[in-house]
């Protein structure tokens, strides 16, 4: 949900020349006048750059693609991958769907909650982590699994120990 306070608090953004170049490359994949097709890929690039898709960023995307801002908001709010509010630097997205639960996904989520000390959706005090359950990631044979954007690196066959190690590694890297 897009909340008014997020919109108000979000700082204005500038798109770098490099980013705009990537936008243009994406737009060139579609027929003349169909640049709206570039919306989902461009929102991914924006999120990779800023960590989430803020309202000011979406307004800029609308301007770039010659769309109404609402056309961008309605898309960003429909799809689960776009964050409409700030997140931890690393967002651990754990599959919570049936097949992964058969092999222990629920226990892994409990463990992550304990390890990070925050409930689903909240950010750790150091700003490094947040986590959430997501739906089937098409890796059901290797569950429990989690992914971390913006590259969506995959971690399979999770155990409490491998989660601990991952969190420690990211802490070291993120400082």
């Amino acid at each position, binding site marked *: 949900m897009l909340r008014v306070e997020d919109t108000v608090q979000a700082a204005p953004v500038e798109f770098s020349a490099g980013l705009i170049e990537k936008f243009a490359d994406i737009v060139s994949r579609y027929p003349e006048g169909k640049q709206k097709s570039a919306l*989902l890929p461009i929102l991914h690039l924006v999120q990779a750059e800023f960590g989430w898709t803020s309202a000011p960023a979406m307004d800029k995307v609308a301007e770039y693609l010659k769309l109404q801002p609402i056309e961008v908001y309605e898309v960003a709010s429909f799809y689960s991958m776009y964050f409409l509010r700030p997140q931890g630097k690393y967002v651990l997205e754990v599959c919570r769907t049936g097949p992964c639960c058969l092999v222990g996904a629920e226990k892994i989520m409990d463990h992550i909650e304990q390890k990070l000390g925050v409930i689903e959706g909240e950010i750790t005090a150091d700003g490094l982590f947040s986590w959430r359950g997501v739906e089937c990631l098409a890796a059901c*044979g290797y569950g429990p699994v989690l992914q971390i954007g913006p590259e969506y690196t995959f971690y399979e066959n999770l155990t409490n120990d491998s989660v601990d190690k991952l969190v420690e590694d990211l802490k070291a890297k993120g400082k």
Partner: protein
Amino acid sequence: MGRKLLLEHINVPGINTFDVYRSKGGYASVEKALKTLTPEEVVEEVKKSGLRGRGGAGFPTGMKWSFLAKPEGVARYLVCNADESEPGTFKDRYLMTYIPHLLIEGMIVSSFALGAKTSYIYVRGEMMPQIRILEKAIAEAKAAGFLGKNILGTGYDLELYVQPGGGAYICGEETALLESLEGKRGNPRIKPPFPAIAGLYGCPTVVNNVESIAAVVPIINEGGEEYAKVGIGRSTGTKLISAGGNIKNPGVYEIDLGLPVEEFLYSDEYCGGIANGKRLKAVVAGGSSVPILPANLFLKTINNEPRLMSYESLSDGGFVSGSMMGSGGFIAFDEDQCIVRNTWNFTRFYHHESCGQCSPCREGTGWMEKVLHRLEHGHGSLSDMDLLVDVSKKIEGNTICPLGDAAAWPVASAIRHFRDEFEWHVTHANEATTRNYGLAHYADPLPAPEPKPEATA
């Protein structure tokens, strides 16, 4: 052991690169099709092969292709459905990760057959690593002259692009996928018109699953008739099965259609049996959307015949005692699993993923989730099972797209086959929060076949 038509070279080091793939005979089907066949002849071979769509619905691919409208001066599109989000299914990810050129090769031949000059592979957004892999493979194929202008000097031009989704199961439904590719919310379209008439940007479009497109490669290399010799009856060729849940060897397997399910489940070549020495309780044979079966009805049909991994055999018995091939997402449940909890989990999934356009789906999935939640948490009542069946019936068939049915079937089938487990959650509410119902009678041998029951569909 069957022949591998798709994954034969999967273990060759470097098969994900163009050079190694090519050295193993890769892209031969492009040379054959573009240099020696007309587009119509390619379609004809695919028809002869009997290939049925591997995305879930099982619609004959050749027939789908022949429906494509071809108005003068209007672009046509091929869009590959790599949205793979059906719980239990992970074969397309596997194929794209390890042998991406097989998909690229299939896309070129299929685009040629359909007369498409621009084609898209719509990959679910979470598969960013696979998107990078495909983009690299496309660049390699292009550098070698298999994509771009005047491919292999034949005058055929093709551009191929990878499009990421945004995270939404519904975008696997083909018209929602097209909306999404146009940069909109993934709301399925009302059909007709079908994509073959008005698809991407209002132009004639074919949408096919990753595995269907990959299968075009062996079909063209060997001929449709040869391909049709593999398999059984109208289930021709090989199929990738994503095997998961409580089995010893989870993974992706290429099987000849018609393999006995018992062999698939218990032989070491495939699943290797149930993990940790447990016994099988239930199976969802084709992804979360298809009916769940107790072990006994999964291994044998109601007539006590061994079940086979084929479209016909898996659906033998209709919705009374059968299931479906679906997407080939094979999920095995051991004796410690709770059917009520799993049904609640799946229903929560469908409620979460409903696009919200039709009230029966949007509201019905929410109601079912609520009722299942209270059953699982010890607050249910014995009338809840009839209530669930009633709600599922009101969803089924009353929605714009098949997600409604996909949400209704797992609930209806779980109650049909596991009603006593559901009732136990009410009559033994406290106990049910601390232990599972267990295997009960779900693996008992079936009673002798009754006079042939009518199969309802």
